[in-house]
């Protein structure tokens, strides 16, 4: 019957709408379900995952020493030419010339956090830091020199 179908349609339609309204009504009254994080407010308690890829840093120990030999493996591994290593020659106490890094230039603005440089590094001198608030007012600030002033290579690293 046409009329029966017509009325059935109306009621099934209204029912389907009410089911949806019940669901949103549930969330309207149950505030425990709220999932948003209050980001700048929770900075103190915010913990990023250990492996989060934020930016490349050169690891320095307490004696201001790093493990980078300047082999440029990371520079070659980088797909975007993010890393540029400028080397110099140090004079060792024995009077020999030894290659060492002068500047470890890192272009954060070009980096895509692909992790290939970390994998490529033979001496585990660099790692990914968990920082993520990278915004600055001038693009030039994103070009970083990773080796700290006065730092030198750790003993025993070839």
């Amino acid at each position, binding site marked *: 019957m046409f009329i029966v179908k017509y009325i059935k349609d*109306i009621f099934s339609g209204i029912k389907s709408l009410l089911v949806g309204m019940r669901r949103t009504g549930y969330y309207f009254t149950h505030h425990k379900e709220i999932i*948003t994080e209050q980001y700048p407010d929770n900075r103190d308690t915010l913990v990023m995952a250990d492996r989060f890829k934020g930016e490349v840093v050169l690891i320095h120990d307490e004696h201001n020493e790093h493990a980078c030999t300047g082999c440029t493996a990371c520079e070659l591994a980088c797909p975007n030419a993010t890393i540029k290593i400028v080397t110099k020659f140090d004079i060792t106490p024995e009077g020999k010339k030894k290659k060492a890094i002068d500047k470890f230039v890192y272009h954060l603005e070009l980096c895509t956090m692909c992790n290939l440089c970390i994998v490529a590094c033979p001496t585990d001198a660099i790692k990914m830091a968990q920082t993520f608030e990278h915004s600055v007012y001038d693009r030039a600030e994103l070009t970083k020199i990773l080796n700290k002033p006065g730092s030198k290579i750790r003993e025993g690293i070839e």
Partner: protein
Amino acid sequence: MFNPTWAMTIEMVIAGVSVIGLFAALGLVLVLMERRVAAWMQIRLGPNRVGPKGMLQSLADTVKLLVKEGMTPDGSDKFLFNLAPYIAMMVAMLLMAPIAFAKDFRLWDMNIGVLYITAISSIMVISILMAGWASNNKYSLMGAMRSGAQIVSYELSAGLSILTIVVLTGSLNITDIINAQADGWWIFKGHIPVLISFVIFIIAVTAETNRAPFDLAEAESELTAGFHTEYSGMKFALFFLAEYINVFIVCAIGATLFLGGWMPFHIGNWEAFNHVMDYIPSSIWFFGKTFFLIFVIMWFRWTFPRLRIDQLLNLEWKYLLPISMFNLLLVTAIAILKWHF
């Protein structure tokens, strides 16, 4: 000094100022309410930055809209483009007149209040069409055309469901309608037919105020922003405000006609209960009912997907209109046979 002309003038100024004040206050409250309702339904917190618990968020928005440049596009019909938001606003203001906000408190007690409201609210479509046409933007024009078709058709079923109450009360005067509900609201007194007409009324006014799921005139994902695509700054804010005021007004009318306006909730012979209810001020009853209806309309918006234009018109002409016509017949029979309580 105090002749009647002066008194009249002062009265009108007071009324005007209070209406504008009510407008501003309502706009702020409703926008905040909408955002809060949306946020909670979407498992978020909503505005919580400006002021305590984000209470001043809509104030901040208003300031932003006020200082924003109100651009008029080059190819637009400048006169109509600038006129349209004011017409939308004026319509919203005019609709305020016959509404009873509390016991014996209304701007204009006229004997054709219901007719006045249905007549004035139809003018709203003109401002939308004007805005859409004058913008010289295809999206705007399509939005306006959709809106025209939509408002004209949904006015029918909204009018018919209002008519059921008029039939039951036998008066077009809003005061009479409220007084007729002293012994119970129409939604309880009028059996199922009034309930049906109440549901139809809510659906129809949701469509008439261009709210989701009937927001085809704006249809963000289809027409970017529909008829107010080209508007910015305060001119946009006027449209925005007019939409919320319209929602308030249609809900106020719904509360007046079906839920007894400022009449408190009474149950038969429970004298004690009825007395407690009488202690609650009538304005609170009115605003409580109105805001409940507004909440329902917001609830619709944040739950349902949007209809397509042909489905929208199908719903009106194939479902709502026949049902409300049949319903009106039933109500008339009830009124004649005095079957209602």
